[in-house]
């Protein structure tokens, strides 16, 4: 998981798969229930192509930043998975709209004889790519066990997702080459989601042994073989002829051109140097005008905006006047998030109502529990004895002009209840330094949402959270409870309950998320940009050219 405003615009570089119904899963589960079209502002989804897939061709994608590493387990930079999701497979995978989890290397969903046991059946005949040092050997359950064990490495210098499994997996068994049984230490609801995460792909032990780490080496079972990484320029991948999904991939060559400048990136799509791109608002109309025939869709970003009040811990309770919940409620009620969205982003986004974004439609809070109501806000300030108002410093990472504008609008809105925001824009690293010391009065923050609700709750509102601190034992208990509730429907209810509890304890205003504008050339079939910016799989793409 990657934090921070620095990547607020990083959605411009992500890649993924739209399912073409061609996977060989033996079943699926609905971690979040049904639903196929995320995002309330999304326009009609473009066709990803009917008809018979054609083989051959070269698919060029734009990548908005350079991957830092090709080691899926030890680095969290979003661009990394664009590559590793195509060179490697996971045991499970999400559907592109995040509504379902299905088998990837597994033949289907695991058998669950009890709440602590998951038995995965590995597809037989899956082979690693025929490149050194894997040399096309068969993928077995031992490889799965090795990968998961490696992912649990707890090294301070690694940006790992060890927490997915560390202390949650009791033991793993491999009774035969095609069976992996995982025993968890306690009922652990996020387990299925985490097994489907782009960060949980299976790697090749020989590659680790040979290269020491996988920073520059991607060897897996995936549909594409990495041929070249020219840093800050491009990636070149070619079709894996021995890919275990019959007929896939359809294209012969896959390229990622790295371009960080928004105007340059848009030009590369306009002049057809790339076939797929995500553009920001500043170049949206230009691209639409120049490429009216392209498939286009708006997908709300997983990076979103919140306005925080002072963090609290057992040793650091709310300072005055925030210790009075009416003051916090007044502040939240005085913020007109729709106006902020309108003024700063020309309404190009979606308001949020709680810690889980609307794109996760089965987990999100659907109604506004803390609506804008200026009169109520003023009354609450009066009831709390704060009619004269007060002032406080607001910090944020000034990494984009829009973030500065948000702060200016918030300042004007809160002035109406006589709360004077003293604006303090900060350089990113300095902002991190202060925000993760949990010493501030107000903060405008751009966090990241992830597919499993636990990631959005535990790391922000759980008892061991580090991204934010809000001390409330009742909330801690509910956050823990949802993570331990394996039954999806029961978990959904708890997730709703805990979100309502959080929202109505008024630690912050959950404001909105903005849209990513995703385009593909009309010849691109069988694939469109997914909802999850980390999902880089393009195995299903084919070119009708």
């Amino acid at each position, binding site marked *: 998981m990657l934090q921070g405003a620095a990547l607020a615009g990083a959605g411009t570089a992500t890649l993924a798969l739209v399912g073409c119904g061609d996977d060989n899963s033996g079943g699926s589960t609905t971690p979040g229930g049904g639903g196929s079209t995320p995002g309330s502002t999304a326009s009609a989804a473009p066709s990803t192509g009917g008809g018979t897939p054609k083989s051959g061709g070269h698919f060029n994608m734009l990548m908005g930043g350079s991957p830092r590493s090709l080691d899926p387990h030890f680095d969290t930079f979003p661009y990394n998975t664009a590559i590793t999701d195509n060179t490697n497979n996971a045991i499970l995978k999400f559907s592109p709209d995040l509504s379902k989890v299905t088998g990837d290397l597994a033949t289907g969903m695991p058998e669950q004889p009890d709440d602590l046991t998951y038995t995965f059946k590995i597809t037989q005949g899956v082979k690693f790519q025929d490149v050194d040092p894997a040399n096309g050997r068969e993928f077995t359950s031992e490889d799965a066990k090795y990968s998961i064990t490696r992912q649990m490495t707890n090294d*301070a*210098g690694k*940006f790992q997702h060890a927490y997915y499994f560390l202390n949650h997996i009791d033991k793993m068994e491999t009774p035969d080459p095609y069976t992996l049984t995982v025993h968890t230490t306690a009922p652990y609801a996020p387990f299925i989601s985490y097994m489907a995460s782009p960060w949980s792909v299976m790697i090749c032990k020989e590659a680790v042994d040979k290269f020491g780490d996988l*920073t520059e080496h991607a060897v897996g079972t995936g549909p594409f073989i990495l041929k070249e990484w020219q840093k*800050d320029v491009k990636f070149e991948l070619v079709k894996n002829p021995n890919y275990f999904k019959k007929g896939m991939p359809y294209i012969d060559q896959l390229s990622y051109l790295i371009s*960080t400048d928004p105007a340059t990136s848009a030009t590369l799509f*306009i002049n057809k140097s790339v076939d797929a791109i995500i553009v920001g608002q500043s170049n949206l109309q*230009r691209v639409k005008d120049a490429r009216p025939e392209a498939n286009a869709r708006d997908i709300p970003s997983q990076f979103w905006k919140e306005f925080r009040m002072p963090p609290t811990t057992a040793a650091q309770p709310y300072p005055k006047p925030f210790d009075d919940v009416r003051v916090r409620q007044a502040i939240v009620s005085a913020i007109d998030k729709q106006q902020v969205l309108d003024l700063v982003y020309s309404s190009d986004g979606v308001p949020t109502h709680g810690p889980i974004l609307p794109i996760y439609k089965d987990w999100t809070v659907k109604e506004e529990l803390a609506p804008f109501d200026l009169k109520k806000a003023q009354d609450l300030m009066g009831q709390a004895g704060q009619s004269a108002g007060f002032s406080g410093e607001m910090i944020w990472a000034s990494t984009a002009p829009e973030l500065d504008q948000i702060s200016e609008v918030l300042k004007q809105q809160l002035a109406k209840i006589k709360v004077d925001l003293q604006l303090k824009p900060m350089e990113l*690293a300095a902002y991190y330094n202060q925000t993760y010391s949990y010493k501030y009065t107000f903060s405008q923050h751009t966090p990241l949402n992830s597919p499993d609700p636990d990631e959005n709750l535990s790391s922000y509102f759980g008892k061991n959270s580090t991204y934010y601190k809000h001390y409330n034992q009742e909330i801690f208990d509910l956050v823990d409870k949802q993570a331990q509730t394996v039954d999806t429907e029961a978990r959904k209810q708890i997730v709703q309950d805990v979100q309502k509890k959080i929202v109505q304890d008024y630690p912050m205003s959950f404001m909105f998320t903005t849209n990513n504008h995703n385009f593909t050339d009309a010849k691109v079939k069988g694939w469109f940009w997914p909802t999850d910016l980390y999902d880089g799989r393009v195995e299903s793409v084919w070119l009708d050219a």
Partner: protein
Amino acid sequence: MTEYILRRVLLAIPTIVLVIFLSFIVMRLVPGDLVDQMMAERPYATQADKDKLRNELGLDKPLPIQFVDYLGNALQGDLGVSPWTHQPVTRELRNRLPVTAELGLYAILLGLLIALPVGVISAMRQDTIEDYTSRSFAILALSVPYFFTATLLIVFPEKWFGWSPPLIYKPWTAGLFDHLEYFFWPALLLGVSLAGTVMRMTRTMMLEVLRQDYIRTAWAKGLRERMIITRHALKNAFIPVITIIGLQVGTAVGGTIILESIFNMPGIGRYFVSAILQRDYPSVQGVVLVLAVIIVFVNLVVDVLYGVLDPRVRYG
């Protein structure tokens, strides 16, 4: 001459050490440190994790010891490893420096190709339409930032004519023409920007030299204009211009930082920006060290050139 160069090289050593020291200290004095930033990507990181990472990176040692360690390794060609990418800084710089150097070189060459003739003509045709046009061009080149013109170049020709400059990096191996075509546009933009200063200095110095007695004598002797300008005037006017060109190497390096992003060039500039934002101490220090060496070297070359251009200059 040899003794002079040797002395300058020896004098350059404390300069470079001072630059390393300053970059080392400044990076650690600015708010927000490397460990905080790295841990911001890691949920559930504890203080113990932070302390462990600080220890692994050697950041828990006293600053003087860290500096001496760094200097000792740098002297052996080891500039450290990026804590973010786990890649040796030396290797990253070796791969990226040629791209930046090439862009900077082409930019300076194109800038001189524009600035010198225009500056000379402007001086020779003082207060004519050519002079006014040249001076207006110089002011424009100085005042319009190249990142602005670069964006215009990328957006509008595409919109109007369906043409855009090459935006995908072409190494030498992709063909000489493609390679040079790729570098031409960013080099031209940066070169024009650099040309403004050189052009104005050339004009000023030429005006001064053209008023000297020996030039009047040359005219009186009946020498041809080309001979007077190239052999007598320009050579003497060129010394301050050379100084400006030397100083512009630093400006050119600064310019590449933005242009590399706009034109998708895998140079040192993009690497440097990213390293600063991430508080990647070894990478920042490595880039600063390399740039300091280049600038010191260029200034040494400039000083030596003084003597070549003007025999009256002595290296005592």
